[in-house]
């Protein structure tokens, strides 16, 4: 891991967890600014809110409106410290347990409440 171009190499890259499962993309990167020190690449954000914010204010407003429509008050967003990055290549591997991430809330909810209720949903491969 030498020099990194944050736009070219990091933001929007596919993220995988320590089991190589896809867990989203780098939707936002947070930098920490401290006087007299170079900006530190601090946090990877995974979540629809951060994504919507990048498109524009109106998209962010739409995103919030949709959330309100479904009665969701909390944004299911994950903030992973950049220290957790294990490897940066075509995908970025994070040393985390994907199932424990808050941003996987919709995936889990659908898996248990919708998809899991239909026969034939479980197992490894078809």
């Amino acid at each position, binding site marked *: 891991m030498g020099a990194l171009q944050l736009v070219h190499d990091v933001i929007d890259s596919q993220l995988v967890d320590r089991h190589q499962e896809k867990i989203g993309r780098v939707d936002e990167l947070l930098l920490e*600014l401290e006087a007299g020190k170079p900006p530190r690449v601090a946090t990877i954000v995974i979540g629809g809110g951060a994504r919507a914010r990048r498109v524009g204010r109106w998209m962010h407003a739409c995103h919030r409106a949709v959330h309100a429509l479904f009665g969701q008050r909390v944004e299911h967003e994950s903030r992973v410290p*950049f220290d957790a990055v294990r490897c940066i290549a075509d995908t970025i591997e994070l040393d985390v347990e994907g199932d424990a991430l808050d941003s996987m809330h919709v995936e889990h909810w659908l898996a248990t409440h919708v998809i899991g209720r239909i026969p034939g949903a479980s197992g490894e491969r078809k």
Partner: protein
Amino acid sequence: MSGRTVALSDLLGRVVRDATGRKIGRIEELNAEISLEHGASDYVVTHFSVGRSRWFDIVATGNFVQPLVRRVTRATGYHRYEIPWDWMDLADPARPRVLRREEELPRGS
């Protein structure tokens, strides 16, 4: 670990002015390296790439028909600035300012 946090996407595309207030382009890329001073795995931004045309740079950074790109850059006098982190004043992330004059800034390829 005190300090302000700024989102990368809030910096991207921001117009950068030099010490005299002249527009010199927009932030298009942030280049980071592993810091030698902090703990081992900390990435810090070393310099900002500031250019004038995002699309041109998307095309130009990808080894895109390199001879053609080189000819076009030469013909149009197009260049990006590579600005070291400590020359960039991000006190207001919406209005980044370089502490030097445009003439002093290092140019990228």
